[in-house]
C-alpha cells in the first residue's frame, strides 16, 4: 500500500531527479516550443515535494495537483495537475493506494488529461507515455512496477521520435518535428526515473 508518506518520499526523489534534468528539458522544449518545460517540471515537483500531505491519499494527491497549479501556467503543469486530480478523486477517503489500482489510476489520469487538453493518442505527447504505462502496468507484480513504468516511458519516446507532433506548440513545426523527441514524453521519462532514484545524501 502506497500511503501519503510514500508519496511524499517519491516526490522528493522526483524533485531531485527532475531538477538535474531541467536544462535538458528546457533545451528539448526550446527546439519544439517555448523552452520552459524544464522550469515547469522542476518547479512543480519542488513545490509538491515540500507540501504537507494529509493522510487521506486522495487529499494528498489533490495537494500535489495544487502544487503544480500554483507554480506554473504552462500546459504541462496544468496537465500533470489534471492527472493528479483525476487520481485524487478516485482515492478520496482512502489511507493508501493498492498496487493493483495503479494501472487504473494512470488510465484515469490519461483520460482526464485528454479531456482537458483536447488531445488524442498518437499526437506525440505525454498522453502516449501515460497510455503506454497504463497498459504495461496491467497485471504487473508490485516489485517490477517502477522498472516496467520506466521501460514503457522510454519505449514511447523512441517509438514517437520520428513521427510528427500533432498537438500544442510543437504542432506548428509540422514535418520538421520528425526526428526530435517530444519534450513532454522526455519529461515523463525523467519523472518516472525519479521513482527509483536514490539521492546521495541519504
Amino acid at each position, binding site marked *: 500500500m502506497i500511503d501519503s508518506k510514500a508519496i511524499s518520499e517519491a516526490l522528493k526523489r522526483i524533485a531531485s531527479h527532475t531538477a538535474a534534468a531541467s536544462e535538458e528539458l528546457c533545451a528539448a522544449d526550446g527546439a519544439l516550443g517555448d523552452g520552459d518545460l524544464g522550469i515547469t517540471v522542476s518547479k512543480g515537483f519542488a513545490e509538491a515535494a515540500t507540501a504537507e500531505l494529509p493522510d487521506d491519499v486522495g487529499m494528498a494527491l*489533490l495537494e500535489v495537483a495544487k502544487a503544480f*497549479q500554483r507554480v506554473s501556467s504552462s500546459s504541462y*503543469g*496544468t*496537465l500533470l495537475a489534471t492527472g493528479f486530480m483525476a487520481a485524487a478523486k478516485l482515492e478520496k477517503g482512502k489511507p493508501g493506494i493498492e498496487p493493483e489500482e495503479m494501472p487504473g489510476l494512470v488510465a484515469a489520469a490519461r483520460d482526464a488529461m485528454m479531456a482537458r487538453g483536447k488531445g488524442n493518442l498518437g499526437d506525440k505527447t505525454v498522453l502516449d507515455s501515460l497510455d503506454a504505462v497504463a497498459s504495461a502496468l496491467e497485471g504487473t507484480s508490485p516489485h517490477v512496477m517502477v522498472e516496467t513504468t520506466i521501460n514503457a516511458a522510454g519505449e514511447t519516446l523512441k517509438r514517437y521520435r520520428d513521427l510528427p507532433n500533432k498537438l500544442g506548440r510543437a504542432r506548428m513545426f509540422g514535418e520538421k518535428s520528425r526526428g526530435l523527441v517530444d519534450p513532454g514524453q522526455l519529461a515523463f521519462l525523467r519523472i518516472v526515473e525519479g521513482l527509483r532514484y536514490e539521492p546521495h545524501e541519504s
Partner: protein
Amino acid sequence: MKKILNNPADYVDEMLEGMVAAHPEIYAQPVRRVIARAAGAKTGKVGIVTGGGSGHLPIFAGYVGAGLLDACAIGDVFASPSAEQMAEAIRLADGGAGVLRLYGNYGGDVMNFDMAGEMAEMEHDIRTTTVLLTDDVVSAPKEEAEKRRGVAGMVYAFKIAGAAAERGDNLDEVTRIAQKAADACRSIGMALTPCTIPQAGKPTFEIGETEMEMGMGIHGEPGIWRDAIKPADEIADEMLERLMADQPLAKGDRISILVNSLGATPAEELYILYRHAKKVLDAAGIEIVMPLVGRYATSMEMTGATITMIKLDDEMEDLLKARAECAFWRV
C-alpha cells in the same frame, strides 16, 4: 525597447500595484495577480470572473467593477494565469450563487480555467459555468467557429452578463445571457506596427514601413493579407464586409459597434473609421445603439484597430445600457 518600465520581470506586478493604488475604491488585489472588487463579493449575487495574459488593459482586470466583473486572474504579458490564480479569482467572486467563467478562447487559458473550476468545486463547493468568447472571425472559418479566438467582443459580454448578474439573475440565467452575447459578437482586427513583450525585449512581429496587415490577432497572430496601407474608408469597408459576411445583418437590425484602438492608434483615427462605418451602416438601414470608440482592448503600444459588432435584441440592449463602473469605463 521604447517602454517605460523598471525590471521587465516586475512589469505585471508593478502595473497591478499602480492600478490598485490609483483606484482603491474600485480594485483590490487580495491575492497576488488576482484583482477583485474593492467592496468584495456581493452575497447572493452570481459572480463573474475572467482571466488572461497582461498587456491588454482595460482587458482583463480593468473591467472588474460594479455592473461588470467580480474578479480576474492575471498572467504575465500575453501568457495565461495559473489555474491556482484562477481558482482564487473564482473563490473571491463567489457570493454563494455560483460563478461564471467568462473569457477568451485560448488553449492555455481554457485548460487552466477548467482546472480552476474543478478545484473550486472540489474545495469550496462553488458551482461554476463557462462561456468562451470566440468573436475573431478571421481566426477560423465559420464551420469551426468554436476554434476562434476571443478578442474585443469580451467588452460586450462583460457588460451584458455583468448587468444580468448585478440585477440578480441566477447562474443559469447569467450563463444563458453571457452565451447569447458571446454568440452575437463578431470582431476583426488590423495592425500597422507591433508591440514589445517586456521580458522578450523585441517586437512581436516585423512589418514594412508602409505595410498593414488585415486580420491580425491581438498577440500578432497572422492575418489574411499584408499589403500597402489602404485609406481608412477602404479599411473600414473591408472590416465591415467581413463581419457582415459572417453574421448577416438586415435593414432594421440593431447593433452596437466598438471601434477599438490596439494602443497607439489615436482617438482621432478611430473617429475617422467610425465616421465611415456609420455611413455604411446607416445606408444599410442598420440601427447603431451606444457606439463605443476608444481603447477598450489593447496590445500595449501596438498600432492598429479592431471593429466589433454585436447584434442586439431588447434584452441585451437593456443590459448594455444598464449602469456600470470601472476605472476605464462608466455607463
